[in-house]
């Protein structure tokens, strides 16, 4: 008993010849179907090249177009011929010209010999698997597809729409339950001949001629009628990408293919000479009888599909530029934004760096330049601190910075004065942790040495800007983790919020903060606010501060700059 190979060929005829000879060398007869689209000249040359080999035959040619009936017709003709002309054949293996046997043919023969009644054909019902191309799964079997998907996509789509509109549904022939699966199968003589000699075959054929991609469903469905034992898997290693076209193997896949222990792989790049040499000329001698194990290859190709469909979150580049809302992660990692903290605390940045173990920048969006940590002019990825470059595309600047420093959490300061900051982007980014002490911008004003009229103007400006920012951060579209305190609220118990912010960063092992940042001396701040009010400017973002009369006539002794607890 042996295995018969039906080989469907349309290009790379020289490789097909090579593989056919390989099969016959182990005593397997081969029936080759050459696509009718191949020119008569090339066909006859091909036939001639294999003339010397008695085990190779050629069958009636059909025109094979992807997704159309021709491929099934080709497989039928080939199978009929091989069953008729080679009575020793027990299993028929459907393969293509770009398939390559990875293990010695004898191993395949032995493997099938040990499983004489088993049909290896991937076959699953449509409702159970997500294999859909062009949004069609169930409908493959209930609509008509007279137009080519490859050549006439427009008509194909319109005709599908039309049928949906009029609720057209074809009747599935009695007794058939549509199944789909890889078109590369290996069936026993019993099953295959039952399919081919079925008295109802004309009906089935007529039905499947108008099914879409019948080569993935014809044998898969009919095998269910006759097979006594179906192993629903293909012996051919064949991976498909998200558009349903097969992945191609190249020279650099050699080791991967070796370790897969699969019998046959498709599709091989015709010019991958190293693979053909390795597997055809010197197949590994040792007979292993191992079960095929394509897990590793699966992983690689699954990753490729994921990269093509989902991409790397937070990456904007020449071939990935997602539309709004399709970023699948606007930035590539979590980061923290602090507003008002460095105004309220004297040494907030070094303190935060120490307490959280993260990279802490100053005001990245300050008007004069991007204040990178440590006063650097350029940071990771050669990102420049030039304010013009940053403001030219602030979102790209921020996304690049987070991308360039992936693996290390970034913190930076924000303030009402940083008008270049892409505040909507920050607010909509779930990776952003934004903590705001509103009104803290008044502290530097309070401590500055300026004329009061200027201070008043500046305070009014900053308050407007900050209130605009807060509006964004409080909008229902905001997805960032936002915390907002008024300054009055915050200074009542500053350690608690600080602790929870640091805990949420989850960077260092959870532990209590041992050191507190030093708060600016706020004596007289209440009076300062009152003065602003008296001048007609109403500061409200910082909450309510009592007016402490540390006036000129009763000087308190200066308090120590007060430490938080």
């Amino acid at each position: 008993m042996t295995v018969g190979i039906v080989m469907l060929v349309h290009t790379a005829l020289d490789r097909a010849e090579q593989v056919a000879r390989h099969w016959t060398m182990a005593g397997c007869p081969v029936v080759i179907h050459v696509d009718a689209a191949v020119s008569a000249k090339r066909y006859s040359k091909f036939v001639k090249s294999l003339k010397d080999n008695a085990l190779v035959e050629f069958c009636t040619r059909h025109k094979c177009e992807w997704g159309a009936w021709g491929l099934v017709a080709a497989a039928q003709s080939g199978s009929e011929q091989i069953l008729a002309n080679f009575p020793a054949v027990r299993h028929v293996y459907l393969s293509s010209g770009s398939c390559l046997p990875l293990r010695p043919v004898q191993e395949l023969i032995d493997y099938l010999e040990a499983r004489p009644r088993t049909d290896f054909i991937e076959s699953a019902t449509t409702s159970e698997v997500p294999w859909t191309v062009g949004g069609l799964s169930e409908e493959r079997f209930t609509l008509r597809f007279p137009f080519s998907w490859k050549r006439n996509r427009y008509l194909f789509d319109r005709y599908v729409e039309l049928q949906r509109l009029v609720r057209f549904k074809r009747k599935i022939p009695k007794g058939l339950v549509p199944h789909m699966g890889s078109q590369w199968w290996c069936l026993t003589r019993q099953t295959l001949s039952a399919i081919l000699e079925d008295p109802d075959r004309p009906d089935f054929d007529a039905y499947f001629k108008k099914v879409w991609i019948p080569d993935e469903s014809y044998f898969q469905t009919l095998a269910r009628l006759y097979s006594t034992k179906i192993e629903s898997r293909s012996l051919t290693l064949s991976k498909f990408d998200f558009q349903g076209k097969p992945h191609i193997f190249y020279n650099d896949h050699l080791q991967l293919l070796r370790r897969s222990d699969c019998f046959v792989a498709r599709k091989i790049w015709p010019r991958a000479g190293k693979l053909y040499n390795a597997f055809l000329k010197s197949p590994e001698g040792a007979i292993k009888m191992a079960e095929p194990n394509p897990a590793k290859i699966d992983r690689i190709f699954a990753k490729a599909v994921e990269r093509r469909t989902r991409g790397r979150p937070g990456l904007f580049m020449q071939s990935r530029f997602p539309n709004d809302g399709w970023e699948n992660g606007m930035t590539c990692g979590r980061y923290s934004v602090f507003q008002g903290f460095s105004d309220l605390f004297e040494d907030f940045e070094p303190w935060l760096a120490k307490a959280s173990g993260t990279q802490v920048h100053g005001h990245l969006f300050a008007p004069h330049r991007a204040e990178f940590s440590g006063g650097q002019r350029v940071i990771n990825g050669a990102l420049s601190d030039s304010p013009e470059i940053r403001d030219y595309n602030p979102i790209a600047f921020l996304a690049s910075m987070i991308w360039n420093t992936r693996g290390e959490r970034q913190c930076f300061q924000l303030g009402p004065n940083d008008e270049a900051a892409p505040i909507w982007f920050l607010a909509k980014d779930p990776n952003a942790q934004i903590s705001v002490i509103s009104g803290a911008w008044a502290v530097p004003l309070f401590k500055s040495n300026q004329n009061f009229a200027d201070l008043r103007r500046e305070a009014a400006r900053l308050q407007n800007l900050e209130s605009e920012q807060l509006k964004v951060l409080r909008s229902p579209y905001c997805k960032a983790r936002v915390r907002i305190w008024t300054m009055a609220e915050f200074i009542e118990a500053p350690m608690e919020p600080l602790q929870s912010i640091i805990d949420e960063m989850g960077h260092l092992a959870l532990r209590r903060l041992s050191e507190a940042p030093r708060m600016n001396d706020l004596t007289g701040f209440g009076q300062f606010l009152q003065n602003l009010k008296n001048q007609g400017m109403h500061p409200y973002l910082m909450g309510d501060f009592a007016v402490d009369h540390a006036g000129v006539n009763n000087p308190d002794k200066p308090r120590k700059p007060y430490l938080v607890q």
Partner: protein
Amino acid sequence: MGFWTSYRLRIQRRRWLVRALRKRRELRAVSDRSNKIKSDDLLLFSTLRNEHVRLPYFLNYYREQGINHFLIVDNDSNDGSLEYLAEQPDVSVWHSKHSYKKSRFGVDWLNWLQFRYGHDHWCLVVDPDEFLIYPFCDTRPLRALTDWLDASSIKSFSAMLLDMYPKGRLDEQPYRAGQNPMEIASWFDAGNYTMEKNAKFGNLWIQGGPRSRVFFPHEPEKAPALNKIPLVKWNRRYAYVSSTHMVLPRGLNQVYDEWGGEKASGILLHAKFLDTFSIKAAEELQRKQHYAASIEYLAYAQSLSENPELWCKWSEKYINWRQLEILGLMSKGNWA
């Protein structure tokens, strides 16, 4: 895109093609071996001027990748480039004395040559200082890529320009003919690029890199464009619009995914910044034959006389394509 825009772009494309046909008279074939081109050959098109020292490595680099025929326009070189090219068995070379600027920086000339010889071929259009890197380029020839693109029904392939520069002054290490320029200019900027969509042509407009960082820190909008689509399965109805930054019909510019995924893309290593650069910059300033009144060269000349170092602490040293892919500058897409 409305009917009207689409119609106007079509008119524009036709106009570029007619212009290219007209400009063919400015070319004189010096050594025309185009009859050797076979139907599935990979072709490379280039315009150059005084690049003799770069040519040996350039030609070999692309021969090894699998380019079958080079079609080159020599814009009046006087350093022996023309003679050198005429000797090569796989090069067809044309000579032109006419204005580089008036041929829209060589685009018209190459549009003509592509119209005439590139139809139905995969065509790579690069300058002599640009070196294509694509996924798996260390193990798979260019043909593997183009076959895969064909099988995936993809007609154009993006390769962003990545400016390479040496550590130290540009003129510190002289470049010898035949040498790999990346031995000298082995550094690049990994993550300071900005991009936006060009609504009219549908391409991405990418800027940034060392040229933006050092030469245009105060006017980044003037920094040169880095987006390129150098590899196209050509059809005689196609036309490059501006260098290889944009091509019409505009569907070819859709080399990026907008729904979160990554399409396959490569990189053009741009080895412009060698010791030859300052001479070139000085000459181009005289000739004023470059884009936007040579504003780029003007900025270079100014900055270079002050502080000719492009290298910084965060520059990245080039290793291989996998490094560029990890950095997010290019992508394997779903090619595995």
